[in-house]
């Protein structure tokens, strides 16, 4: 991590100094333990604020759509896949973007940390050799990194950037794709329809319609979201209407079919801890099975809805 941080800083500094780009989008140290935060660097000497860590959980592709300036982005596997889809959808001009690819070892799920600590407050954390040391007021615990990674990271088939101009660090081994439809402990496909319904209703009864999920998604960029449309009003504005909370997510996920790279950014953004990954992982799996299409892995392959239908 430390070497990657150094390499990112150097690369960013050079790109800005040589005026190859006007802006570098990356991550800086966050204000909470195990948290990094998106940052925008414009001056060469500010490149020292860039870091790489296990809290670089946001999908930075969300900041790259329709930008006027020439810029660089620090992209892990999932960011790079979203970038590929956004290029295909004419939201990113490839000529104006320098992709600094970083192979990803997975990001830490702070919700898993909190569950493990069962109410004790995390004040400090350190990751070393596959171990995470968690410290609080009167405790100290060491946990395997593997136990704390996001479910979407544990099963990520493309942790290495698929598209880049500069690659920093060594590629990491990809995980098996077979467990993709199992979002962590929830075995979605094993559930009967009534159980699926009950599960979604229970999860989305907590939804407050803050739309953080939508805003965090690089692929959610409709000029007017159907959820905001008032003529006609497709769904109730009330988050106490659980049926419509489910309807909102169902439509959102269907709108993302063939475009969603299952990065988990929506799931991580949700302040209520609602399991959205269960929906995106099932949908991406279905798209693979039905259309043989995996979003984000190739610039050439046409998206399912744009490709001619084969009738054989």
């Amino acid at each position, binding site marked *: 991590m430390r070497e990657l941080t150094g390499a990112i800083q150097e690369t960013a500094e050079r790109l800005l100094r040589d005026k190859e780009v006007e802006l570098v989008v990356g991550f800086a140290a966050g204000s909470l333990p195990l948290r990094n935060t998106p940052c*925008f660097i414009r001056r060469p000497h500010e490149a020292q604020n860039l870091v790489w860590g296990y809290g670089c959980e946001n999908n930075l592709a969300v900041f790259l759509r329709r930008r006027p300036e020439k810029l660089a982005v620090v992209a892990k596997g999932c960011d790079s896949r979203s970038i590929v889809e956004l290029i295909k959808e004419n939201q990113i001009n490839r000529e104006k973007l320098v992709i600094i690819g970083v192979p990803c070892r997975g990001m830490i799920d702070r919700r898993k940390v909190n569950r493990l600590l069962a109410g004790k407050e995390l004040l400090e954390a350190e990751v070393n050799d596959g171990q995470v040391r968690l410290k609080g007021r009167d405790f100290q615990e060491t946990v395997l990194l593997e136990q704390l990674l996001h479910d979407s990271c544990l099963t990520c088939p493309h942790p290495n950037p698929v598209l880049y101009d500069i690659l920093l660090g060594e590629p990491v081994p990809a995980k098996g794709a077979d467990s993709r439809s199992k979002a962590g402990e929830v075995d979605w496909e094993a559930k009967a329809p009534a159980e699926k319904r009950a599960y979604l209703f229970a999860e989305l009864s907590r939804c407050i319609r803050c739309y953080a999920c939508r805003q965090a998604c690089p692929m959610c960029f409709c000029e007017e979201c159907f959820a905001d449309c008032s003529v006609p009003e497709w769904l109730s504005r009330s988050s106490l209407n659980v049926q419509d909370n489910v309807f909102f997510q169902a439509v959102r996920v269907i709108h993302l079919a063939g475009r969603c790279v299952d990065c988990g950014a929506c799931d991580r953004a949700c302040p209520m801890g609602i399991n959205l990954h269960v929906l995106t992982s099932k949908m991406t799996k279905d798209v693979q099975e039905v259309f043989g299409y995996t979003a984000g892995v190739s610039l050439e392959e046409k998206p399912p809805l744009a490709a001619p239908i084969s009738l054989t």
Partner: protein
Amino acid sequence: MLLLNKDQITSWLNKLIPAYQVFAPVKEGDYFCFQQIRSGEQAVLNYTNSRIPPKEILFPRSEKLFCYRCETGGVQLTEQVDESKKVVVGVRPCDAKSFLLLDKVFNGDQYVDPYYLTRRNNTVLVGLGCNQPAATCFCTSLSGGPFSAEGLDLLFVDIGDQYLVEVVTERGKELLSGMELPVAGQEAQEAARAVKESAVCSTLVDLGGLKYRLDVNFDDPIWALLAEKCLGCAACTYTCPTCHCFDIVDEAAGKEGCRIRNWDACMFPLFTLHGSGHNPRPTGKERFRQRIMHKFKYFVDNYGTIACVGCGRCILSCPVNLDIRQVIEQISQAGGDQQ
């Protein structure tokens, strides 16, 4: 000051439940929230704070204001004012203070909101002091404190197996009637004092120069930089105990419908979109500026106090870790020696 054994809490709440709607912290998913409880055992009082503030009990995420029905000869209206008696147990001092701020908006000189106010007048607030403030808490920087009784009817101080109960108002006292609680002796008072002394908010936010900056920095380039990583969601405002913006819509089908008030957020583009298509706050910069200005300048200009109680919820909820403490610091520092 009285003493209540922790094992009496359940029976006390069970005694209240027939007479009041009782709300208490319960665990929902990974977080705590205030919910109406049907039995005293459901209340969890060893919690840090709820993800959604208890403001939603008095100012719900969504509420019917009135319903209507078109009939031959006219329209029939039914008003939906909630007159039930409520008790909220386990309110943290920062959230108690937030009700005093909401009062200024919903019970002001120019406008009195019957929906909020009726609930407010019928609600008794039972506070719970914070033995161990979280690292994100900064109530002491906003003239609050982990054991402040401001805005509460009763305040519980956790001293181990017992709560020391500070009776703040008559309404609070009534809640305890029939319990025949003993008066706290020297020892219990000593224990409470020790607990209060050891509860420190480690985060201090210097608000000294902020208002001076906000009075003059409306056009400062800093806003574009501060807002750059903001996604424009409502995670911060919907989890904030003092945010109070709303939108009113009709939900109707056929000949009947209801007028409904829903929470709304200044961070959404739609919030200020005019019917003409013009939007006075066209980008994230203006919207982010509005959120900060409203809390730390406009509210001060209008009501003489800051609309933030330092609960830290927005820090924990923001999907990009846009930390309000750092925002305050950066704005104040950008002032340099101009002050």
